[in-house]
């Protein structure tokens, strides 16, 4: 047998493999590397001591093994295994066996028997554990083979009595991963392992080693994950484990209890030491709540997290979690929350606290006080006050989930969430603000709560403030005083942090539209109108005034009586704002002659968005223009592009779509223009001057296509084809222009070949899309391909020219959602007249704060560019940690840019802008090439595809005034 195997191994040694490439020109022969197995065998035979052998094995393990030779390697290893007396070498072999059986494409059933056999005579516990691990790998590789699994489980059961915890651990793990999930199947397989896996695992809940206990619970959870319905009997066992001495056991037990509570929520369990019975989910909830005050914070985090997902729990249990009976000297005391509520309901508001205001009132019956409740009492109160912020965050999250499912609980937990706004850790504050936002449709804020919430508006962290603005967007406020308070605080915020302008306006927009009736009585005060006197007209550019107007106009939308309260200049301001801040100010139905000032006609059919229609209509028009005269085409294209661009500016939600198509049409226009040039008819030497236009057009089209491909999110493969097609056309144009302008044929050879290669790769990448491209440039080109390959460059150029002219204009299908990546640099503002002074030769840090929208993978693509007045440019890659993700599709870049320069005589401006880096390799096209195996992938990609890297500027440059001073001597 061994001799035969060895022969097989040596056969592989000289096997010749012929590699087929699609590209016939790169067809080549290749020798496979000498087979691993043979080398290993030689090494192992050479090894004189166990240490040597171990070294060889370690080296061997670093390199991957081909699928075909795995079995041979395994045989050699096993052969060596039986001979080896040193446990460490056997251990390594065992681990290698596991590693090898993981090799993709290898089916390990052939080595299973051998692996099981090795277990029989093994004495070392460590090796035994490793072997079981290997068996686990083998078992997981063979999911459709119940008999194999049965066998492995049987083996594991046999070793459960081992004295080493490691072995028992692995056995349990194996049973958990491979144990039969359906009872029926277990019975069909006639073996005796049909006994209950759960019982076997359950028996080890009381193992003497905590690690084994943990493994047992984990195995049970594993079984559950694989779909086995756990028995309810385990519940009482698991409850006992909650009092275990070891945290990992407790942590796992909490999970198990949670699983059981989800499986049997409605079954009834008795309460020990009384005759009462409660639902299992309530009991489990109480127990997990109890674990929120566990000694180990790992358990506390676990418990707090799981609480959130127990939504079937009864409401009075749930509400207990927020209950903490206060007392002082055995007298009942009211919590600050209760006092606040009472103050509020009694109509008195925020009186100064007096000494003894919180003095305890009623006497408490000493017998009735339960200091450590078995129930859920105060679990969240404890969790939210925990020392570790991990626990606090988990508690806030759980609170959020429970509140989302129970409105009454949401109302009750409000006080606690509001308290969390003052946590010492920013993350916790942020989390609680987000939580509050999520449950905001269930709640209405009381005035005193609103007060606390609004106090956070002065926070110096921008994230917090913005989160809070978003929270206010969707909060319900109960009184007009509340609205007034919110407005006042927001205006305060605005004066303190002017950069929050946009966010505050947006916030007020929603606040206004949600509470029109509450805003109505405030209008005269807010606009400071007077019944008899004319008041001075406020400054239209004052952000605070704009903020007030945004609130009022949005409220007026659903409150037709409000415009009557406006004074004349308000209407004028409305017209101005409606035009300049159209996304914040809604169209209003204004009475009488004032209607004229409204730019949007009132007869809007709400269902059909006219702008969307307009977009499609104009595109329709363009695509149907095949038969117009060239002049007409050009004009129509120009008009359409202009229309689209204007549309993009007006309708922010269509901007992406409009820009995208406009760019495409622009490319088309450029192409047509270039082809319309008279120059093509003239003999070569004469048009040297004019060709500037054609080559410039080609270049611009190339650039635009990169923009189209990488700057828009939501671009699908249908669009990518067309973009690539346009690029191909541009390249053809380039080729023709060069052919016309350069003399001699030599340089053309290379260019032609390159172009043909590109056509070829285009065909490979988009083979599935080709049928949709009837009559296009590439379609025609591919028809002519055999001719092109054989003909001379001049021929090729001629063919290209005619095809390019005859080819039709491809229809660009629009995806559902298309957004253009945009960036807006908030800081530096570029308004400062004070130069940033620093000593030349040293560096100065410039804070850059920018918002990015619709950028995919900003960490990899967004760069900061600094342009110095001397033309020197510096490209900075921000750290991945500098990007934050406040919402879907939005990113925020907050980073520092280090500047340095030699001394200047006077301050000068540098430009800072953001760039979007791209790499055509990374493009969506190359992702479509099927992945090849690791050894081939490097060679298979032709170097030409290695990509053009470039950058697209996508933000307005900001000027910063700097002044490097000469160093003082």
């Amino acid at each position, binding site marked *: 047998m061994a001799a035969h195997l060895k022969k097989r191994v040596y056969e592989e040694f000289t096997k010749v493999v012929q590699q087929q490439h699609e590209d016939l020109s790169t067809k080549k022969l290749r020798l496979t590397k000498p087979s691993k197995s043979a080398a290993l065998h030689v090494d192992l035979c050479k090894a004189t001591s166990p240490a040597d052998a171990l070294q060889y094995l370690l080296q061997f393990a670093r390199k991957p093994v081909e699928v075909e030779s795995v079995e041979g390697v395994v045989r050699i290893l096993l052969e060596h295994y039986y001979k080896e007396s040193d446990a460490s070498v056997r251990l390594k072999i065992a681990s290698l066996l596991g590693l090898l059986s993981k090799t993709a494409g290898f089916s390990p059933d052939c080595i299973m028997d051998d692996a099981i056999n090795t277990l029989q005579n093994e004495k070392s516990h460590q090796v035994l554990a490793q072997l079981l691990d290997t068996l686990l790998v083998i078992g997981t590789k063979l999911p459709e083979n119940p008999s194999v699994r049965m066998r492995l489980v049987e083996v594991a059961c046999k070793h459960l*009595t081992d004295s080493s915890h490691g072995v028992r651990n692995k056995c349990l793990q194996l049973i958990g991963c491979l144990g039969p999930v359906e009872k029926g199947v277990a019975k069909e397989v006639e073996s005796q392992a049909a006994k209950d896996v759960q019982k076997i695992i359950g028996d080890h809940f*009381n*193992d*003497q080693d905590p690690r084994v206990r943990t493994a047992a619970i984990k195995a049970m959870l594993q079984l559950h994950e694989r779909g086995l319905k756990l028995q309810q009997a385990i519940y009482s066992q698991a409850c006992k484990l909650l009092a275990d*001495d070891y945290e990992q056991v407790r942590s796992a037990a909490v999970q198990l209890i949670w699983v059981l509570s989800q499986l049997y929520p409605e079954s009834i369990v008795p309460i020990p030491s009384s005759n009462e019975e409660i639902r299992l989910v309530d009991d489990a909830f109480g127990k997990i709540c109890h674990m929120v*005050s566990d*000694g180990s914070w790992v358990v506390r985090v676990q418990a707090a997290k799981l609480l959130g997902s127990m939504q079937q729990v009864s409401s009075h249990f749930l509400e207990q979690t927020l209950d*903490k*009976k*206060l*007392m*002082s*000297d*055995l007298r009942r*005391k009211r*919590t*600050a*929350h209760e006092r606040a509520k009472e103050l509020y309901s009694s109509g008195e508001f925020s009186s*100064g*606290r*007096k*000494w*003894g205001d919180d003095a305890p009132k009623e006497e408490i019956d*000493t017998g009735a*006080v*339960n*200091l*450590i409740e078995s129930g859920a009492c*105060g679990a969240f*109160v404890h969790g*939210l*006050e*925990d*020392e*570790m*912020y991990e626990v606090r965050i988990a508690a806030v999250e759980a609170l959020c989930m429970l509140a989302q499912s129970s409105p009454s609980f949401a109302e009750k937990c409000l006080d*606690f969430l509001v*308290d*969390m706004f*003052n*946590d*010492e*850790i920013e993350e916790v504050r942020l989390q609680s603000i987000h939580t509050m936002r999520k449950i905001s449709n269930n709640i209405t804020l009381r005035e005193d709560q609103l007060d*606390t919430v609004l*106090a956070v508006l*002065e*926070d*110096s*962290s921008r994230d917090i403030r913005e989160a809070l603005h978003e929270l206010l967007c969707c909060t319900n406020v109960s009184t007009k005083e509340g609205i007034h308070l919110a407005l006042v605080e927001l205006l305060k915020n605005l004066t*303190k942090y002017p950069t929050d302008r946009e966010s505050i306006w947006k916030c007020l927009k929603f606040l206004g539209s949600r509470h029109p009736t509450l805003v109505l009585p405030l209008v005269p005060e807010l606009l400071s109108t007077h019944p008899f006197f004319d008041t001075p007209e406020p400054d239209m550019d004052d952000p605070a005034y704009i903020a007030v107007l945004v609130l009022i106009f949005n409220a007026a939308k659903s409150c037709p009586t409000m415009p009557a309260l406006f004074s004349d200049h308000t209407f004028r301001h409305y017209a101005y704002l409606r035009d300049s801040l159209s996304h914040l100010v809604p169209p209003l139905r204004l009475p009488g002659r004032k209607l004229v000032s409204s730019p949007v006609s009132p007869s809007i059919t709400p269902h059909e968005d006219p702008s969307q229609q307009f977009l499609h209509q104009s595109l329709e028009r363009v695509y149907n223009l095949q038969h117009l005269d060239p002049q007409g085409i050009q004009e129509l294209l120009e008009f359409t592009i202009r229309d689209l661009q204007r549309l993009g500016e007006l309708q922010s939600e269509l901007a992406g779509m409009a820009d995208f198509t406009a760019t495409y049409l622009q490319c088309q226009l450029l192409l047509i223009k270039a082809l319309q040039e008279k120059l093509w008819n003239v003999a070569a030497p004469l048009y040297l001057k004019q060709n500037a236009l054609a080559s410039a057009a080609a270049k611009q089209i190339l650039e635009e296509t990169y923009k189209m491909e990488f700057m828009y999110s939501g671009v699908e493969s249908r669009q990518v084809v067309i973009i690539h097609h346009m690029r191909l056309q541009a390249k053809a144009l380039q080729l023709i222009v060069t052919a016309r302008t350069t003399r001699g044929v030599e340089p053309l050879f290379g260019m032609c070949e390159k172009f043909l290669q590109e056509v070829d790769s285009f065909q490979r990448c988009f083979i599935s899309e080709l049928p949709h491209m009837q009559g296009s440039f590439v379609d025609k080109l591919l028809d002519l391909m055999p001719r092109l390959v054989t003909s001379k460059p001049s021929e090729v150029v001629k063919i290209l020219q005619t095809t390019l002219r005859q080819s039709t204009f491809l229809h660009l299908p629009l995806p559902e959602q298309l957004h253009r990546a945009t960036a807006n640099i908030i800081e530096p503002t570029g308004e400062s007249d004070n130069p940033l002074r620093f000593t030349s030769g040293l560096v100065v840090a410039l804070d850059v704060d920018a918002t990015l929208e619709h950028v995919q993978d900003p960490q990899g693509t967004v760069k900061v560019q600094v342009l110095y007045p001397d033309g020197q440019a510096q490209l900075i890659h921000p750290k991945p940690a500098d990007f934050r993700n406040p919402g879907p599709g939005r990113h925020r870049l907050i980073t520092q840019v280090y500047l340095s320069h030699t001394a200047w005589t006077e301050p000068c401006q540098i430009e800072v802008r953001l760039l979007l880096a791209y790499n055509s390799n990374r493009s969506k096209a190359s992702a479509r090439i099927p992945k090849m195996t690791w050894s081939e992938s490097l060679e298979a990609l032709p170097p030409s595809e290695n990509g053009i890297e470039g950058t697209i500027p996508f933000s307005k440059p900001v000027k910063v005034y700097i002044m490097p001073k000469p160093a003082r001597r």
Partner: protein
Amino acid sequence: LSAFSLCAGAGQDVGRSCILVSIAGKNVMLDCGMHMGYNDDRRFPDFSYITQNGRLTDFLDCVIISHFHLDHCGALPYFSEMVGYDGPIYMTHPTKAICPILLEDYRKITVDKKGETNFFTSQMIKDCMKKVVAVHLHQTVQVDEELEIKAYYAGHVLGAAMFQIKVGCESVVYTGDYNMTPDRHLGAAWVDKCRPDLLITESTYATTIRDSKRCRERDFLKKVHETVERGGKVLIPVFALGRAQELCILLETFWERMNLKAPIYFSTGLTEKANHYYKLFITWTNQKIRKTFVQRNMFEFKHIKAFDRAFADNPGPMVVFATPGMLHAGQSLQIFRKWAGNEKNMVIMPGYCVQGTVGHKILSGQRKLEMEGRQILEVKMQVEYMSFSAHADAKGIMQLIRQAEPRNVLLVHGEAKKMEFLKQKIEQEFHVSCYMPANGETTSIFTNPSIPVDISLGLLKREAAIGPVPDAKKPKLMHGTLLMKDNSFRLVSPEQALKELGLAEHQLRFTCRVHIQDPRKEHETVLRVYNHLKGVLKDYSVQHLPDGSITVESILIQATAHSEDQGTKVLLVSWTYQDEELGSYLTSLLKKGLPQSTA
């Protein structure tokens, strides 16, 4: 064997903590505090309780100080230098650093201000501190071969610790003062599940369950913020250490968060020195400070500056922390007099005030104060009370007991009436006995110490092989001989024991006669007995020997007719002492008689 404790101070009383614990022959003194309320001999614990004659050093094995508050360490120089103690004193590093400062301050006030004599001197404090051994958290310190101590984190103040004292397998945990809810600068107390025989816990707030600290903090910040925005001045009288730092951190972070500009001052001197130590002992603070100190040490205050007397007259808003905390003298009182007349200003009392102090008066609502020189001071400024206390409340105490799982609990450092309630609760909910000794009272607690015995491996393996798989949770019966020799216990096999002791083996047989009513012949009776036993004892080898006797394993049964009554048969059962279990079972079985059905 027992662990007992004697309270020299702090039994059913706050202040003057001093507890003496004798555990397995070792004597340990826990804390050595003074009483703030007295100025005579009663301010220090009565050390004559400890030993009537003989030196303290000979009697005490060590002294442990839990934290630097004077009611826990104030009597230390007196005790070690004036009464005379030369043994080791254990405390944590921060306590060792801060303790002498406070002692010196205390000495200055008593000696220099009040002019007392017969008090310890600066040199004595220094000498005393030389005897101190500093310990780290969770470090096990071997005091001598048997006695070991270990410190756990206790919150409360910087460096406060709980101590576990362990001799052999008996242990006591002493909590000192502790806090189960974290605050702005310290974490929560934590102890592992060490299952001590006795837990000595403070019980200052035995009958109180407190509200969440967040409300208090928020209220405090809101008050300060509002006043400062109005342009008013805020006075916060504090004691130099502990709460002052917490409030400083609270205000500092708030100022930072809210970008406020109004200046915050704290009085120079002691507070400044203390802040220095807080900066050094970062590892003793809470999670947030520990995690962020690499970027910035939280105690390097950006907004809080040292106070100068002249600043009090500056216009515009400001916040001032001034000592002492009860407004009875010093800087805080001076500032109070200056600011009291303006209703825009505010004073916030962050702690308890003793009766008779200005602090207590204004808290109880007095608006006109009589100062020295018959001046009448009208208080127009707002007066606020905020309780920032760092003791565990009833729930916290229960939580600690749950964490440690002690077998007995002893309450100290609290009022008797309140302790009574807590005691009852502890007994009811944990089912452990609870004690609350008065000063000078001794409590003895009986423990069940487990005594380790060496067993030879051979015997262990042999015995473990018999019967079912060993289970850690169940006791297992083993046979062997216990050898007590040279103060050590060993469990050996009987043969080895005989060999070691040089004794010959003696056979010991028990015989027993059982009377059975059976009119049949002897050999028939024997047969019946044989069949019966065979039926009952299925797992044992039961043999009927040719000489008419029956053996069950090595037990011999013979039957003879009764000499007087032929109807009665006498069964003679004989067994060696090793088979005692089976033998006695057999006799009881036979005494029940044979089954009636005779086949």
